């Protein structure tokens, strides 16, 4: 298999065992992978633990776009970024974890920006419902006193 690979290609193996062939320039957008490649401790196949195939595919898509479009207009890339990160919370969480773990700065930046946009302009109550829906009850009871006096200052 690996003999048929062109030069400058790497195989990334996700946590659930699926393999992706990506150009090295794309793969090294992840600092973690870059370090592995530079230290030459990586064979042709690089395991990417903690990241499943689904998420890995998304991350690769993002990196490819950013690699290709270096020359393209920055505004195009911005539109792509904002569309790319516009996902459900679960996918967002997985992507952020992956981007953080593999140290892909551009992706992490775009994702954090997206979460920030989700928070902007919302009231305390709405932020709680949107992000903390799972454990709203717990938070309300444990922060009971805190809630009373801090809600007074804002809104």
């Amino acid at each position, binding site marked *: 298999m690996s003999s048929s690979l062109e030069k400058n290609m790497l195989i990334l193996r996700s946590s659930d065992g*699926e393999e992706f062939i990506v150009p090295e320039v794309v793969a090294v957008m992840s600092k973690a992978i870059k370090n592995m490649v530079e230290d030459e401790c990586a064979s042709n196949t690089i395991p990417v633990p903690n990241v499943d195939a689904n998420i890995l595919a998304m991350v690769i898509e993002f990196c490819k776009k950013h690699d290709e479009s270096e020359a393209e207009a920055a505004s195009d890339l911005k539109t792509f970024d904002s569309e790319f990160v516009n996902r459900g919370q679960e996918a967002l969480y997985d992507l952020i974890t992956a981007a953080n773990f593999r140290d892909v700065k551009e992706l992490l930046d775009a994702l954090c920006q997206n979460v920030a946009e989700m*928070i902007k302009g919302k009231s305390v109550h709405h932020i709680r419902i949107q992000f*903390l829906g799972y454990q709203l009850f717990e938070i309300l009871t444990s922060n009971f006193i805190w809630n009373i006096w*801090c809600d007074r200052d804002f809104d």
Partner: protein
Amino acid sequence: MKEYPEMHQNTHTIMNDNKRIDRGEERHGRINKAFILQLPCHVVIEILCKLPMKALGKCRCVCKAWRDLFLDPHFTESHFSRAHTCLLAQSNSSRYADSRTLCLIEFGVSRIDAVMNIRQSNLPKFGIELVNSCNGLVCMQKNGRLYLSNPTMGGEHLTLPVATEDLSIPFVCGFGCSQKGNQYKVIQIFNQLSFHDKWVAKICTVSSGTWRCLGDVPHPFLYRSVGIYLNGFLHWLLDYPQSSELIYAFDLESEKFQPVPPPPTFSMYPGGNICWLNLGVMEGHLCISCFKVDIVCPDIDIWVMKDYGVGKSWTRDLVIKHPREGWWDPYGFQLIKVLKNGGVLLLCYFSPFVYNPATETFRKAQIEGIKSQIEAIVHVPSFVSLKSVLGEEILMEEDCHQVQAAPSLLGQPSITMLIQ
């Protein structure tokens, strides 16, 4: 254009829905906690640092975990390093109305927003004046007594003891932080009653709460002028400037006064009565706005010192053309900030205007949420706690909860009680 071969035969498309849903259900059992609370701390800090102050004020109240994060020095630092310049305003009629309410004004992409009204209910009701701001902390004064507060952290404040018991009003005052020792200090300069032309400086390190006498001041500063804080130095203009000495800096570390080289062309107009000067900070540089008073409709030149302390680095960055209209008065002029679109925000007699240097036109700035005239100081907001000013360790978890839940605990006592 590079050609990428198609992905491997096992290529996974994003649309593998069945599998995805299965795993999603699995995960609910595993997580059962909000995703945003599971993110590593530095990622949450990264997210929060991208938010404007208005949203941050709300985030602080969302849950306990986040409130604790706002006390984290990592957060405070990375937020302040990226914080944008805001305005801290007081209604102009405050001398007669309630002066405790401050208002933080933030500059968004498309509009200027009054984002927070901070009511400091334990301060005296009338006559509070803003002095200056440093690291997000604000110094206020009333009749020579100084108060410190971080308006973004709610209503808590510190009351400093008065410098002299004889009720004299300080000539000038200023507040700042020494750069190496990270000590917050306030300085007041008094006119000695017995000698008309003698000025004495007194300084107080906030964490100790006692005033020390620094001795005579080399030159008189402009009466009632406020120290301009930059990089550990407070700056004042001299009352009778010479061509070589125009600005004096006070080093908060060594507690010594030293002259700062003035713009080179200032030797062209010697004497103080020909030029009207104003000192300020713009984008982290010391700047002077000046105009010649012997001209009928003077333009205002804005000089910026690009390299701190280097006389040759003064450049004339901006010229504000006289609009030749009745409302404009260069004496009431205060430079605030250069906006992202190149416009210059300024206050003219307590009303905000945006000056467009390209078209040389003025436009009254609409601030969402403010109707009256304002007195304002330039302020970079932060979440630095007053406790760090006192040099205390920041309490986390339970202790902190008590302090925060009862604002009066920090609000009422004077500084001496807080230190114990």
